[in-house]
């Protein structure tokens, strides 16, 4: 009976496969963009303006997703935009996670004045409107990919701190924390070896969520021209440019939006699905 229980059929992992598949494609394209993109994303050809995607009459075979109002290849720009999005998702996501989680673990486990200080800072931090804060911050420290990443870290660390603090407090109240004490484990070792593994699934969920949010924030900053230089293709920049010519060439706007939507959705779904699949407690 025990064996049957261990290998019981589980919910179909289609969520894991679909989201994982899209993310593999996303990171693959992001990594290989310079080699696999059919055109130079910055090359303008004013004789080939606003070419439609391949299934519409008038399309050129060399431009499967058409061209924008300056005759630049949309597919190539989308691929190079993926590189920017992937860089932001990984670096900003992981750095935010590290900073926020460490503070959340300390506040939730040690409580007392450590918790007081961290929690009050979080409260104050969260009273700023985040997007305005980001725009202000980038305006002050200057545009560029590094600034965007710094802005995301500075704004979003509170997301991790709040969630991780609450989960750490809940876990610290469990008897296994006291059992570790009885076993002679030091406080710090208890936090790292007993509590952290139980908080990790929550951290993973928020991390995948945060990676999606980081891409959105980068897109918003690109949209208002505060991300990387306007020459570099980004999804947010493409959406901003596509907005101008929406009636003549909708594909310039639609493709980056679909890419953005699918990527952000895949991140959140992947986090959830991963947890369901590999967490020994939920399994």
């Amino acid at each position: 009976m025990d064996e049957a229980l261990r290998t019981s059929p589980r919910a179909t992992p289609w969520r894991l496969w679909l989201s994982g598949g899209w993310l593999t494609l996303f990171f693959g394209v992001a990594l290989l963009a310079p080699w696999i993109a059919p055109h130079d994303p910055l090359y303008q050809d004013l004789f080939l303006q606003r070419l439609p995607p391949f299934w519409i009459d008038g399309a050129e075979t060399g431009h499967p997703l058409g061209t924008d109002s300056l005759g630049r290849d949309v597919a190539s720009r989308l691929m190079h935009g993926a590189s920017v999005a992937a860089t932001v998702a990984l670096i900003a996501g992981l750095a935010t996670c590290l900073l926020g989680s460490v503070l959340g673990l300390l506040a939730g486990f040690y409580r007392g004045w450590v918790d007081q200080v961290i929690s009050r800072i979080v409260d104050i931090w969260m009273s700023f409107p985040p997007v305005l804060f980001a725009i202000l911050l980038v305006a002050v420290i200057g545009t560029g990919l590094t600034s965007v990443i710094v802005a995301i870290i500075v704004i979003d660390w509170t997301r991790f701190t709040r969630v991780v603090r609450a989960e750490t407090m809940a876990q610290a109240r469990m008897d296994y924390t006291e059992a570790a004490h009885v076993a002679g484990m030091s406080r710090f070792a208890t936090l790292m070896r007993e509590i952290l593994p139980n908080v990790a699934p929550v951290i993973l969920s928020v991390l995948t969520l945060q990676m999606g949010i980081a891409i959105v924030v980068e897109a918003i900053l690109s949209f208002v021209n505060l991300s990387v230089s306007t020459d570099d293709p980004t999804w947010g920049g493409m959406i901003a440019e596509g907005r101008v010519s929406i009636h003549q060439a909708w594909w310039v706007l639609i493709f980056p939006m679909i890419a953005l939507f699918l990527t952000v959705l895949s991140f959140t779904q992947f986090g959830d699905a991963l947890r369901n699949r590999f967490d020994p407690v939920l399994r």
Partner: protein
Amino acid sequence: MSALVDIRDLVVSYPDMARKPLLGAAPRNTVLHGITLAVGRGQIIGIVGESGSGKSTLGRAILRLIEPDQGQIVFDGTDITHLDDRALRALRPRFQMIFQDPMSSLNPRQTLHRLIATPLAIRGDTQAMDKAANALDRVGLPSRFLARYPHELSGGQRQRVGIARAIVQSPDFIVADEIASGLDVSSQAVVLTLLQDIVRETGTTLAFISHDLSVVRRLCDSVVVMAGGKIVEAARTTTLFNTPQSGYTRKLLEAIPLPEPDQVW
């Protein structure tokens, strides 16, 4: 021969956050009012009382899981009342605890192997894994369970893991806090018999905290009855059950449901 555990005038209080003034410290609720108790080596002592009587607090205070306000805890001739963390950690293997709810006291993300071996591994015991396997065998669980997680076990099996974790370090003293209360009657019998056998066999001293007087009667050499943070009565088990001195104890004894109502104690 002196007692293994000797407690004198132990007072424990908790801060009452509900009545905390805006500024200043919260008033304290005293839950143990000067407990004095000696537990002899190899004895099984029962600590009984209603919930809120302070029996669990007493168990935790003896193991220094709760800081006492006043009084003295002497363990095997060493005053451990004010030992610092480091010194206390060195003594920890000698006094262990089995918790009420094994679902909460066993880390859900660790296999039984790791759960049982952890107390030894902390001390760098190179044979931790083998000893863990032996301990699991001693509590009657097959070695193939070593790779399992707590949620894959039944309640009774989980509590046996709790026992294995306590005995793996061969302690001198174990506090068992309501360890059978979450189990069905047949699992209760199995777990309690197992604990009794192990304790008698190894000569371990046991403080058995329970609200179930019939279990205490079967298991313990002596009994302490607690109410409102004080010891109401302490006596040999047979003496207490045959000639209870205090009115409170008599009331508790009358409340035991009898298996055969006509039989007189």
